């Protein structure tokens, strides 16, 4: 049991370091009404190191981002790019991998100086399947106040992939 704990801990350290990352982000963007708006935002994302592909939809109001392997991006940096283009970032659907931990505040995943806290409205069947350790999951990161880009987010997990 002790060996198993050490292995899990080592795996966690590895994932939390090099491999803990956002893999995909569908970032909701409010206030974007025209082609130059989308062009500017797309250009802004393409300049960011760690973004592999960008697609911006005016009609959906979403920037669909595929992140490169081993990227160091944070959701905060992504939302700051939205803000610097003059728009408002809202909820984001994400795919991420990291290390799931449980403490007195509940479940949390930390990566790249950001923490994703599990939102209480996550479905019971997902809650019951959670285990400490490396995890890859899909979830909805709740809307945050624009003027104070956060380093701590609330996430509603919709699927545990690994």
């Amino acid at each position, binding site marked *: 049991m002790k060996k198993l704990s050490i292995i899990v801990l080592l795996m966690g350290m590895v994932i939390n370091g090099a491999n803990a990352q956002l893999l995909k982000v569908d970032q*909701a963007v*409010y*206030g*974007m*009404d*025209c*082609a*130059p*708006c*989308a*062009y*500017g*935002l*797309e250009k*802004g994302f393409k300049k960011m190191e760690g973004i592999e592909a960008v697609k*911006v*939809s*005016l*009609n*959906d*109001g979403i920037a669909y981002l595929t992140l490169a392997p081993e990227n160091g991006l944070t959701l905060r940096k992504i939302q700051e790019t939205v*803000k*610097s*283009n*003059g*728009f*408002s970032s809202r909820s984001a659907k994400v795919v991420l991998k990291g290390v799931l931990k449980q403490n007195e505040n509940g479940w949390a995943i930390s990566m790249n100086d950001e923490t994703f806290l599990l939102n209480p409205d996550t479905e019971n069947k997902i809650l019951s399947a959670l285990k400490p350790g490396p995890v890859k999951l899909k979830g909805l990161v709740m809307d945050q106040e624009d003027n104070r880009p956060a380093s701590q987010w609330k996430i509603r997990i919709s699927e545990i992939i690994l």
Partner: protein
Amino acid sequence: MLAVLHLPINENLAQGHGPLFGLQTPTLAKGGVDFNAAAMSMGTSSDESYMLRYVWSYGINEDLQINLTTPTVINRLTNPPRTRGMSNMPANGDIEASLWYRFFSNAFGVGKRFESTAIIGASAPTEERRGETLVSNSIHAAISTGYASRIWYAWLGGGYQYYFEKNNEQLGDLPYGSLVIGYRPDIFMGDYPKPDWRVFIESLAEFPGSSKSETGVQAFDHRGKKVMAGPSFLGLYGAWGVSFGALFPMYQGIDQSLPKEKYRLSVNLSYWL
């Protein structure tokens, strides 16, 4: 160097993607650069002007934008009507630097936002006399508020231009207001990067004050009233934008010594670097 037929961009976004003649609100993204080249003309009862104008805009941040506009005057009116500052001034060959500050913005839905922008500018003339009056430097201030969405747009604004005295002569001041309604038909609701077209109905009300002659007296002692209205069209594709439109007089209550306007035309090409 961005304006001539139109104003700078934006916007963010501008961002040069608003009306052609009326005040607008969008500002560029942080670090964004926009270039506009415009061709404009004004027709009066006695003459016609032709001018090219260039506008460069730069987004200091997403709410603060600086603009510089310079003209190439092809044919200058001998007795031009007073037109407002900023880039939409077919009878006004001024070089102008301006600062736009978007002091309020509320993006509350997909493609939807309310925002308000304040504008200050300073202009230097490129001619010695405008009509019968020595023309000097001027300052301009305006404020605009508006609503943007994927379908409807509306902007309401007002401004004031003041010319300084030169050798005891002074061009009259110019308070003005503008109202613009915009609409994007269903057929142009294709998603980015498809072309994006919209149509505006623009209106402009100007109230030119009386100029002071070399004797220091005003030519007449009442403020003129002029209302112009007309359509404009804006097409956007990727980093490019083209807009064109015309204003026609609806009402001209001006002194008989001043020429009556027949039209204002503008065609503008924008590029977001």
